[in-house]
């Protein structure tokens, strides 16, 4: 029971990751793959953020600079920073992937991988 209380957040995020991962490798529709990619990355981000949390602590913005600062009162800022980066990376990857998908759509007029491969085989 202890472990469940202590670790369930990780498990939820891992479950999310795996959903995204499955979509990435199993779905045949390109957009669904991309969506899976986003789910995966978002789950990773949540995972990181959850590592930053400390019980009854607040966001790391120091109100009065005079008081002696107790780190335990403020949550860990580092994962947030890393995840800002990761979010941007995710968005950029998403943009690039969308651009590629649009090029594909312009070429093959479909977004289903199997159909595209079929078309290519016909061309041969």
């Amino acid at each position, binding site marked *: 029971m202890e*472990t469940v*209380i*202590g*670790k*369930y*957040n*990780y*498990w939820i995020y*891992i*479950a999310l*990751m*795996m959903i995204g*991962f*499955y979509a990435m*490798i*199993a779905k045949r529709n390109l957009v669904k793959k991309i969506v899976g990619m986003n789910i995966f990355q978002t789950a990773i981000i949540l995972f990181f953020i*959850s*590592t*930053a*949390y*400390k*019980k009854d*602590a607040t*966001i*790391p*913005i*120091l*109100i009065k*600079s005079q008081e002696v*600062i107790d*780190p*335990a009162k*403020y949550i*860990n*800022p*580092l*994962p*947030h*920073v*890393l995840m*800002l*980066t990761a979010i*941007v*990376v995710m*968005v*950029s*990857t998403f*943009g*690039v992937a969308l*651009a*590629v998908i*649009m*090029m594909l759509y312009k070429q093959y007029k479909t977004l289903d991988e199997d159909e595209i491969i079929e078309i290519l085989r016909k061309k041969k």
Partner: protein
Amino acid sequence: MKFFALIIVILTGAVLIYSTLDMPDWGDPNSPASLHVSPRYIEKTIEETATPNAVTSVLADYRGYDTLGETTVIFTAAVVCILLLRRFEDDKTL
């Protein structure tokens, strides 16, 4: 194929979940992550960077170089979109 994928996914997930058992609990104030590097950011952010918002100070100052990289990433994305999609008027070939 789908079945194969499912196997892979389940295995990966199993490994990940199994190894979480050795992790510090959620919100544990004594987890290594909250004891090793980060305290300095919280304690010293004002006296070292005059920025009450620790996230900003870490983002732009302590780890400012990461942020340069991340800005570059998003810039890359834009350049890539132009390179791939944009069709200019003075463009004969595409």
